[in-house]
């Protein structure tokens, strides 16, 4: 295709989120996180440390906000609480939302963060030069920068023997974040290919979804209409693509929503609203 061709027929080539994004997606990995079930226990977060070789930063660096928790469970008190928080606290697991129109991607000067044909925001560690523009641009604050060589302190022998060989240990100067356990995706795809079959729903799940004691996290492929996660998204009438005020849910009582949807970043994680008892 020539430049002339592109310029003259730009609308043919321009495919944005409205018409399914820049890619012909093979898969679109997504999650549904039910805040009615999430108890805020941190099992998911620790499972993520175990699966993804996340470094330990220690108290001083934690204080500076340098913790590498790809998945953190936030706890919020209600602003309306009286003398006591009578309705408990609010917990939300927060990790990379694998946005379909990610704000982190276009700002990377070296294309270290890019969109995969699976709909993931991938981070290429070898390309990353540590400009941190992506982190600056992420509305969810879920990108974590290696300010130091955390590996030097994190795994004194023999703790290093626990490191997952399916993915690397990152060194200083590199940005990292939740990958939806891309190594598990890769392994599952390879296995399916070797067995000459299609990838099936629940062939694998991410480490966080696997560990969750209440099964609050559902992971899967939204391009597979029969996957658990597709069914959850359909049930709660949450759709991919841009946010529009013109198309409210048919049933306003459904619980599905995406955090910061109004920013139009097309997150891949649907949260289900926390349920509050009114009778008490």
């Amino acid at each position, binding site marked *: 295709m020539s430049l002339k061709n592109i310029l003259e027929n730009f609308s043919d080539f321009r495919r944005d989120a409205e018409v399914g994004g820049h890619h012909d997606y093979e898969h679109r990995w997504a999650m549904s996180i039910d805040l009615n079930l999430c*108890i805020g226990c941190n099992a998911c*977060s620790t499972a993520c440390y175990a699966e993804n070789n996340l470094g*330990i930063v220690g108290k001083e660096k*934690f204080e500076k906000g340098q913790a590498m928790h790809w998945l953190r469970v936030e706890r919020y008190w209600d602003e309306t609480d009286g003398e006591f928080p009578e309705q408990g606290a609010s917990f939300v697991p927060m990790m990379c939302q694998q946005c379909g129109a990610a704000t982190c991607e276009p700002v990377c000067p070296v294309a270290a963060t890019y969109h995969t044909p699976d709909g993931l925001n991938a981070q290429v560690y070898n390309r990353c030069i540590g400009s941190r523009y992506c982190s600056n641009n992420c509305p969810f604050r879920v990108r974590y920068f290696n300010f130091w060589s955390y590996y030097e302190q994190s795994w004194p022998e023999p703790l290093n023997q626990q490191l997952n060989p399916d993915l690397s240990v990152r060194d200083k100067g590199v940005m990292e974040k939740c990958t939806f356990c891309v190594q598990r995706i890769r392994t599952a795809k390879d296995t399916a290919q070797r067995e000459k079959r299609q990838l099936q729903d629940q062939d694998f799940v991410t480490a966080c979804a696997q560990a969750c004691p209440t099964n609050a996290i559902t992971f899967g492929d939204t391009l597979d209409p029969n996957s658990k996660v597709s069914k959850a998204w359909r049930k709660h009438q949450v759709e991919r693509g841009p946010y529009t005020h013109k198309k409210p849910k048919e049933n306003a009582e459904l619980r599905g929503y995406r*955090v910061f949807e109004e920013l139009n970043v097309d997150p891949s994680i649907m*949260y289900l609203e926390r349920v509050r008892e009114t*009778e*008490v």
Partner: protein
Amino acid sequence: MNDIKVNRRGFLKALGWGGAGTALTACDLPTTITLEEGKEEVVAYVVPEEYVIPGIGVWYASTCTQCDAGCGLHGRVREGRILKVEGNPDSLINNGSTCLMGQAGVQNHYNPDRVTQPMMRKGAGLQPISWDDAMAELSKRIKSTSGSKIAWVSGSVSGHQSVLISEFLSSVGSKNHFAHETINSSVWSQVCADMIGDAEPRLRLDKAQIIVSFGADFLGTWKSPVHFAGEYAKFRSGQRGMLVQVEPKMTLTGGNADLWIAANPGTEGALALGVANFILDRGWNKENVPGTVKQALAAYDVDTVAGLTGVPATKIQRIASLFSERAPSLAIAGATVEGQANGYDAASAVMLLNIIMGNIGNTIEAGNKFPERALRAKSGNTGDLVKFAQGLEDKKFDLLFFSNSNPVYTAPDALRVKENLSNASFKVALTQHPDETALAADLVLPLYSSMEDWGSHVPAYQPEKVSLSIQQPLMEPLYKDTRGFGDVMLSLLKVKSNAYNKFPDYYSYLKTAMVNMPESVRSGLKGSRDQMWTNLLQNGVLNAGSNTPKLTPKPRAIKAATVSKNSEYPMHLVPSARLGLWDGRHANIPWLQEAPDQISKVVWGSWAELHPSTAGKLGVQNGDFIRVSSASGSIETQVYVHKGIHPNVVAVPMGQGHSAYGRYAKDRGVNPLKILDAVSEEKTGELALYATRVKVTKTNKSEVLVKMGGSETQLGRGFVRTVSADQFRRTEGEA
């Protein structure tokens, strides 16, 4: 093929002398160690050893030992190393899930500060010694000490490990087995045994439409947290049950409650009686209790109870109405209720609520009991700690054994365990880590980690079927001078008994014991004995039927004690338990140190929780250090101010304040257990962990409180949106 066996290492060494070896070793050969001992022989690089395919992870079933709930695990083993654990979906306890402590089990195994060789006290310090010398010294001591002077202190223990401890003690003629756990539910168990005839009933959270929990942190630290979290998910689905939590300091369970109530500490029993009285007074459910019980309740009218508990009368009425309307209901009592001087009566009041509502046989069913009595769990408690401390004080013991227990750290200073240890002439610690008790011992025997060792576990809280879980090694021992717990037990047994001579090691004992179980136990397993064993190892769990005896409620009149004012020590101390560091045993795991506390979100340290009104009066804010003093001692730590705590309470979490226990735990934070008064629960003799009165004073020190998250509220950003339960039931109630 060939009679001459060449060890791989020796082969490479020989090659290293020539040029070929240099080339070979530079290839970074994968470590091909099989799980079978002694099979480290020469194999061609292209032919991987049995079981080991380089680059492919294999999953083996085992059991989690991070707490005593007995969750089944699958461990991913690759190139001979255990990399990660996940829940075993066949386990009825955890159904494929784990908690954060379970996930962190690998860091317990690979901990850089493990004890790697036996050590014996020489003068002031511990010096390395060989196993042979250690065991020779030990058998000499066992032979020369009279049985009544020998004592064993363990944590909760079950399965064949428990059998071997009992067998050892009976072989030497001792009856002194103390099972000590700081986090336990033994008062509640005693109440269950006395009032419904079953110490460990099955609680049907999934069936309940309303749960009123008096201080039972069942999502975090009560009995079997992962199991209850799974049941909680069912409870919250469909018609969505309601959760009311009454406790002095918000726990993880309290954080998920629909209604969280801070009654005056120690008056929870009165609140339960007030609710009971209100229900009976309305003429509801009268038939479930005799008139005498009802008459005794009459003293607890709503206004009196409101005055006692500080909970508004309207709220008490509301709870009572909801509790009776939303049947089936369930009331449970946990640590903060049990741990009072009147804990037994308070927990009985809670059980009375269940009897009144007819929950016995409905949401409280008879618990499954493992048919082989000897394998059942011996649940740890604090009553045993008190008895042990008293025995030590009275110089009753000469030879002491500690396994899976660290009383020097967990016992309150008032019990004088540390000082009185010198009353016993020889103390043996069977341990994985250099904890405080091991450092005070005369002989330290280093054990395998639970991922290197064999075992069988019958958890105290049994799910819908009778369950036993097998613990099998997930990798070869990291240190050649460590030994399995069962192996050490067998060596100890052989000192005075010949009955175990036919078992060369714990593996052969366990295998023989398992395949010879009665038919009723091994009903699920098929085939020859070897096949059964293989099946068992593959499944990791044995789920064998269920027994359903009927429970008979025995209601009785209860009087709840009141809590007196104390002008010198006006506040109540809550040494709160956390899912993570637990009672301090996981303070040496870096993941768990860096995992924020679920409620305060503080990492890597200790803190004291105060209500804003109390903090205001004291003139302190987040990060300021306060001194918490009881009659038995004082600690200083940073303040975290939040509303989820009774204004008259200061809560300091357990877990930190180790003086040893490795680089991650040592000299970090404070241990609130140390300043507890030696108050005992009146009926059971348990240590009343939550009955200590303290005063709080300000210090001049202040540091940044290191915690996750910059803002305490959402500031309108809408991360967590909410919907009313009515809406939820309309749209998803059928699910």
